[in-house]
């Protein structure tokens, strides 16, 4: 609340992060889908206001499970979550738009969780849709008539329409081509800079995690636990493809991490 009133300059993701209030704190002691198989070992995470944190790890290491627990979709077998966020939204790997609703109705769908009249919902959905570059024609289309990139952008619009304080991203960019992907990165980061939205992202793409995050947590499997935390040393505006490559190299130079991703001798392309 205090921070809302204080004049926050947009691009100051680091340095002042320590003084910012915590938005989400997750502490999982143990999680099992099956009584004999531990999916998550003790793993904890704290997310500050306006912070972008990524969890990377090989497929099946439990990172998506951790995100689901953090987002409150499932409950940890033992663990604690406390969140000060009023509104949260999740962007899934698949777009999960409702095929029987037009794009506009899909975007306004999530707003039904709030106390708004139908007119207000439609108005808000329309504003968000235009801000995200949709045209009037797109809004009446069904998801099946939209391209893959537009569908995922629609899903992002639906998530951002609720004006989340806390946004969860579950590999939402993995099925998109490089250009569409960057469009969505920009839209998400704009929300972070403008509204101090906090983001917890799960991805298996190391470069993506380094490009977007303030902090990267590396999760190791069997059972899932955080093996390493890595603070990205550059501010977001300083990051370019070239120096991201160097960051990636320095991250994968750690043998444990290279092994995690099956990337020993990672400089070898094939």
């Amino acid at each position, binding site marked *: 609340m205090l921070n809302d009133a204080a004049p926050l300059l947009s691009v100051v993701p680091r340095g002042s992060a320590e003084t910012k209030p915590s938005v989400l704190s997750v502490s999982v002691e143990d999680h099992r889908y099956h009584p004999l198989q531990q999916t998550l070992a003790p793993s904890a995470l704290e997310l500050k206001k306006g912070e972008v944190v990524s969890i990377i790890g090989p497929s099946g290491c439990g990172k998506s499970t951790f995100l689901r627990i953090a*987002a409150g*979709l499932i409950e940890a077998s033992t663990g604690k979550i406390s969140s000060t966020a009023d509104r*949260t*939204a*999740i962007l*899934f790997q*698949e777009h*999960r738009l*409702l*095929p*029987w*609703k037009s794009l506009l109705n899909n975007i306004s*769908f*999530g*707003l*039904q*969780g709030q106390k708004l009249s139908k007119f207000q919902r439609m108005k808000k959905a329309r504003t968000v849709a235009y801000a995200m570059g949709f045209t009037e024609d797109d809004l009446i*289309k*069904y998801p*099946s*008539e939209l391209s893959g990139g537009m569908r995922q952008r629609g899903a992002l619009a*639906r998530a951002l329409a*609720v004006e989340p304080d806390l946004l969860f991203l579950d590999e939402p960019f993995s099925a998109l081509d490089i250009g569409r992907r960057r469009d969505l990165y920009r839209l998400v980061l704009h929300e972070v800079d403008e509204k101090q939205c906090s983001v917890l992202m799960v991805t298996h793409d190391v470069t993506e995690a380094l490009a977007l995050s303030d902090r990267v947590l590396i999760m190791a499997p069997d059972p899932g636990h955080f093996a390493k935390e890595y603070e990205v040393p550059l501010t977001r505006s300083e990051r370019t493809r070239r120096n991201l490559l160097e960051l990636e190299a320095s991250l994968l130079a750690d043998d444990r991490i290279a092994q995690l991703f099956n990337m020993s001798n990672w400089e070898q392309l094939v």
Partner: protein
Amino acid sequence: MIHHMLSTLMSKIWSGWGTLAGVFLIFALWQVGFETFGSLVLPAPLEALSRLVDLVALPSGLEYILITAKRAFAGFLLASAFGIFFGLIAGWSNTLSLLCKPFITVALGVPPIAWIVLALLWFGGDDGTPIFTVFISTIPLIFAGALQGVRMREKELDEMAQSFHVPLVQRFWQVQAPQIVSYLFPAWATALGLSWKVVVMAELLSSTRGIGAGLAEARVNIDTASTMAWIVVVVGLLLVIEGMLLNPVKDYVEGWKHAE
């Protein structure tokens, strides 16, 4: 928008032509059958049609049709109401849906004719027998359709709705109901067709009024023209119901599937 409406209208007319062509083809084959086998086996189509006009012109003929329609719809609507209600409940519970499987198999396996005999013993020769027979032979279809619809829904969409804290009622109507309907509707359409056939059969064996009773009379009099006339009535009404009721409903609930 106008272009869209025009094209849907054109496609409707076009499919209407298709149906009409099929109907005329059947009449043509019928005519061939009549010319080959003679009028005792198959009456001339024109004779049957003129008999049809006579039958409908009689006050009792129209009454018969209305009585049959009333019984078929009563049984069908009852089966829909109960079948959908219980199918939805059973679908939401793992235990119940497992328990229901053998019941559905048994209920679908019992031939309608067996139900007619039982119903005659229970309800006698009045409206009760055909209505019950229609009810009992269509309810497993509708029940299974509703149950499958609930079971097969995409859990991912539920999770998405949950993540936005959308209230349960809206979640049901906007997320789950459309998925359930896409399973239920084909079952429902099959059940409607079945209810027509079963009601006529039940009437033939149990009733003194209705299309089935008319068929029974025709049989007693060895009157093939009337028999064919009644058959034309049954099939014609089924076509009309499909075109006027089922297809528009189908277009409405499944319109999103046909977006290009």
